């Protein structure tokens, strides 16, 4: 079984790519998600 710290460390390492992608795309993300919804 993994220790608590091992699990947390792995979780931290695995969060990095998600953060990178979010930082690269966040300028457009919210406008992209909401803009399509305006059209009736």
């Amino acid at each position, binding site marked *: 079984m993994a220790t608590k710290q*091992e699990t947390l460390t792995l979780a931290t390492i695995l969060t990095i790519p998600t953060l990178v992608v979010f930082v690269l795309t966040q300028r457009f993300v919210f406008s992209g998600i909401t803009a399509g919804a305006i059209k009736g």
Partner: protein
Amino acid sequence: MSNRKPIRWGQVGTRAIVYATLGVAALLIAFPFYWMVISTIRPENEVYTVALNLLPSKLSFAMYRKLLGDPQLPVARFFLNSVIISIGATIVNVITAVLAAYALSRHRPPGGTIFYYLIIATMMVPGEVVLIGLFRVVNALEMIDTYQGMILPLAVNAVNFLLIYNYMLALPRELDEAARVDGAKVWQMLWHITVPLTKPAVYSATLLAFLSAWQNFTIPYLLTQSNNMYPRRWEPSLPRVPSWRRNRRR
């Protein structure tokens, strides 16, 4: 004569309440992440203490060294597998979503509405329902335990299609007509006019596709057999390849 506007205390009070509420909400959301990161750089014995120490007594990167340097548990390899699968699935996902959305929203082919509803209908089917069929298809294609086999099932997503479709639908048709008058081909219209204008939706779809692939546990677990192909979800808490999973290709 001064042009300064009088302070509206009611407005200031409302704003203060809004910011305080947002600040507390942000803190509540961010704190678990902070705690996660700070727990990884504490000495191990401090992780289990009940006291709420916001800062570690001593910085220690021992757990990172242990996890990344353990030959028995190739975390770096799992990580690389995840990156390859997620990026591959994201690229294919965005390309298919853009092409399908472009064809159905800008060109309205005959029978397009049927395809539109067929794509939307896939959103109503829970992923677990198709798992057995998915395994059989990937097995028949001899793609079990390969990157392609894991990328393909993750590479089509109706949500991304819908996002881009709705965005493209809102673009004025005159743009296409003007391009056509200037002699632009369909690919040129797509690449030079529609895609640049659809950038916000494409970026959103990229993020959603990446997250969906990165967070997916079931499909890679179902379609892998060897330790080397496992994505990052195979944490130390999970055992090595169990015997029942070996040699299951029939």
